């Protein structure tokens, strides 16, 4: 009867690792927010009654949405060009999009410190060509965080969408042309609708990535542009307010899980290839 349990035996170590060190600890974190002495929902009442905390949550949503929108537009257009590029150029373009992904978040965020700083490249350039005498302070603004995040996530979007666009059979595009659709018409009526599920997947990746990021808002946003990730760290490691930090963690989990589940379901429904 050993055979009946072979599957379980093989999967057991990995399952145990996830159960013991991910499911239990995260459940415990969320659990503590409902075990507060002041009442079941009191940590949440505290969170949502604080104007500052609401601002942090709202800012995080706003930055993530804007980042998602920008990388969606540019990622899609770029992915379209990449997917239609001739063989060799296409591989080079794909590698050029993969390379930033191999480089860590810290390094890539740091690059924008050099570019956007007071004595950074951009300011030197602007002063140099006489647009301004005084360098702009571009760091620690919502804009600097968004620029860095778009930089961070656009490669991911491009790679996701190149895969999706390449999966659209050339036949369909030719069929569309043979029926009289112009290239723009084919793009609008055939390619775009078929790419929508992929766009949703890409958007979910970018949104959750931005929403839960730490290093980028920390380096480019600082105290002034506190986001959920940096706020969680501050509550936990500077203020030692573990219940407060757990509340932030719980809100992050709920929002990301909800977004992922809802959007993947929509994407699946919209995907005609799977029916």
């Amino acid at each position, binding site marked *: 009867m050993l055979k009946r349990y072979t599957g379980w035996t093989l999967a057991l170590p990995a399952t145990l690792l996830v159960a013991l060190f991910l499911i239990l600890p995260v459940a415990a974190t969320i659990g503590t927010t409902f075990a507060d002495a002041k009442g079941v929902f009191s940590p949440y009442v505290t969170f949502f009654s604080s104007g500052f905390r609401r601002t942090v949550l709202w800012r995080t949503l706003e930055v993530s949405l804007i980042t998602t929108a920008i990388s969606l537009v540019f990622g899609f257009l770029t992915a379209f060009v990449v997917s239609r590029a001739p063989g060799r150029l296409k591989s080079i373009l794909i590698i050029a999009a993969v390379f930033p992904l191999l480089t860590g978040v*810290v390094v890539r965020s740091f*690059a924008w410190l050099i570019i956007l700083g007071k004595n950074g490249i951009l300011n030197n350039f602007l002063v140099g060509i006489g647009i301004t005498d005084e360098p702009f302070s571009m760091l620690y603004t919502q804009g600097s965080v968004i620029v860095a995040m778009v930089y961070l996530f656009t490669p991911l979007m491009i790679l996701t969408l190149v895969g999706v666009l390449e999966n659209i059979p050339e036949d369909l595009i030719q069929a569309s042309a043979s029926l009289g659709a112009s290239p723009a018409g084919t793009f609008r009526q055939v390619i775009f609708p078929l790419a929508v599920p992929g766009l949703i997947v890409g958007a979910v990746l970018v949104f959750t990535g931005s929403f839960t*990021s*730490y290093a980028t808002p920390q380096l480019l946003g600082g105290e002034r542009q506190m986001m959920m990730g940096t706020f969680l760290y501050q509550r936990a490691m500077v203020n030692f307010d573990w219940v407060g930090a757990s509340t932030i963690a719980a809100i992050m989990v709920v929002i990301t899980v909800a977004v992922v589940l809802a959007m993947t379901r929509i994407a699946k429904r919209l995907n005609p290839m799977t029916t």
Partner: protein
Amino acid sequence: MTTRPSPALIAIAALVYVFLVGPLVIVIGASLSDTTYLTFPPQGLSLRWFENIFEITAFRRTIVTSLQLAFLATGLALLIGIPAAYALNRYRIQLPSWLSTVFVLPILVPEIVLGFSLLKSVAVGASFPIFVSLLIGHTLLVLPYCVRVISASLASFDFSIEEAAISLGSPPARTFFTIVLPNVRAGVIAAFILAFITSINDVSTSLFLTGPGISTLPIQILAHVEQFFDPTIASVSVLLMFLTVAVMAIVERTLGLTFLAK
């Protein structure tokens, strides 16, 4: 072809690529500068800031820790992830359908939440040593890549080959190593590289688990940036980039990067 993109689209794509590649070029350039402040284009070429990395004890130590963590976590994740992926494909009928979702959870749960939760439960709650906590965190972090990538290769593996080997008298365990594993080698290599890169660049999970005397390179860089803003950071960033590329190159040399061709 009939759907050649318009010049306007090509121009946009070109700009996007400048935007993607430019900052990395700037970091590399800045790391070679002879000045004591960060600047680009570099003024006077020098490798002094690379030498400086190794004069700072904290960097020396964290580079070692990061490499140890990345290799150990990747190895562990492969050790338990390969059997899991095999079970998910070969014994699909025996196992509940939600099991594959379990192995995606580490990606679904925000890393920073994982780090914080491990801090509370494992590092503080169970008083695990710092390195062990970090190792647990990193193994969890990279496990989904191992299971998913190898599952994907196994999905296209024809299990009748395995049955053929067994019918010819090869014991099941040996068959796995002589027949199954060589055929999903590309998946294992891809999983190794993805996992290694994820581990060595991780910030959000490690953030909470580093402690006195033990830190990882990205966390150390983050701490260093907040105090000093000199080209050391650029050079150590470049070093991290090259560590990643070097590992890919070594893996490619020894095992072959055939998966990239697919």
